[in-house]
C-alpha cells in the first residue's frame, strides 16, 4: 500500500488537497494537479492510479483520459466527478477508465476502487 502512487486531478483545490491528506494518512503516496495540463505533466512521472475529475477549466477530464491512455495504457484512471450523467459514465468506460464514482464519494469506496485498480494494473 505504501508504494501506491495516486495522482488526484480536480480544479476544486480545497477538495483535492483534503482528499490527498486523507489518502496520505491511509498510507498512499498522493500528488495533486489542478487542471488538465498540470495532470498531463504530472502523469509523465511514475504514477499507478489517476483519480480524475471531468469538468475542469481548459482541458476537460475526457481529453486528459484520452491522452494519458494513449501515452501510458498501464495507468489506471478512476473518474470522480460531480457531473455524473449516464452518458459521461459510458464515455469514460469507453475511453478506458476503470471506475466511475460520483461526488461526494466515501473514502472507503475510493480506497477500494484504488486497490482494485492496482490489481488490474
Amino acid at each position, binding site marked *: 500500500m505504501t508504494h501506491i502512487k495516486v495522482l488526484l486531478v480536480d480544479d476544486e483545490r480545497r477538495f483535492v488537497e*483534503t482528499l490527498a491528506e*486523507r489518502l496520505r494518512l491511509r498510507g498512499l503516496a498522493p500528488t495533486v494537479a489542478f487542471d488538465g495540463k498540470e495532470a498531463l505533466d504530472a502523469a509523465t512521472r511514475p504514477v499507478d492510479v489517476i483519480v480524475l475529475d471531468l469538468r475542469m*477549466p*481548459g482541458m476537460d477530464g475526457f481529453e486528459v483520459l484520452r491522452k494519458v491512455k494513449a501515452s501510458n495504457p498501464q495507468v489506471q484512471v478512476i473518474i470522480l466527478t460531480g457531473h455524473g450523467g449516464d452518458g459521461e459514465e459510458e464515455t469514460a468506460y469507453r475511453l478506458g477508465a476503470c471506475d466511475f464514482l460520483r*461526488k*461526494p*464519494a466515501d473514502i472507503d469506496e475510493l480506497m477500494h476502487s484504488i486497490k482494485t485498480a492496482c490489481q488490474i494494473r
Partner: protein
Amino acid sequence: MSHTACMARLLASAVHDMRNILAVIRESAGLAQDITRFGDGSAASRKELEISLDEVRRQVVLAAQLAEGLEFMAQNGPPRGSLSQSGATGDKSNSCDLARVCRLFCRMAARQARAAQIRLECAENTEPVWMESRPMPVLHCLLDVLDSCVSVGGKVDLHLAATQQEGATGIAVRVSGGDNEALALSALTACLRPIQGMTCARLLSTGPGTFFLVLPTGEEG
C-alpha cells in the same frame, strides 16, 4: 434558447456545484475525524483540525446560498400555473429585485463561468433594485451575456450590477481584464440589439468596456 432550457442549464450548473460542496464537506469532516483518530495531539494537529472544521462551516454557507438559488428557481422558473397545480406557492408577482436576481445568477452560473475561466462577480447591493419584470427573462438575458463571453473562449472578468441609469432600471455589465477581454467586448458589442428574440431586452454601450442591459418588463419574455 427557451426559458426552460435556460433554467435547465442553471440548475445543472448549481447541482454540479452542490455536489462539489458536499464533496468538500465530506472530505473536510472526514479529515477532522482522521486527525482525531491518527493525530498526535500536537499544536499542528489541532490547527489542522480547526482548519478542517472552518472549511465545513464555509461550505455549509455556500450550500445554503445555492439552496436559496434552487428555491428561487423552483418558485419563479416554471411556466405560470404549473406550481399552483401541485399546491406549491411562490412569488408570482410581476416585479423582482434585480440585485437579488444578479446575486443568484452569479451563484447558479458559477460552475459554467469557472469552466470557461470567467471570473463572474456581482455588486453587493445593500438595497433592493425593484423592477417590473419576472425573474426568468432576466436570468435568461444574463445567461445570454455569459454565453457571449464563453463563445469567444472565456477568460474574462465579468461584473454585474443592478442599477438605474437615466431613469431606466437594468443591469450594468462590465468586462474588465482577462486574456479575451477585447474579444468579449466585440461579442457583446455585436449584441447591441434585442437579445435572442426578446422584445424588450437590449444591451446598450455606455462607455469603454461597459454596457447597460435594458430588460424586458411586465409580462415580456
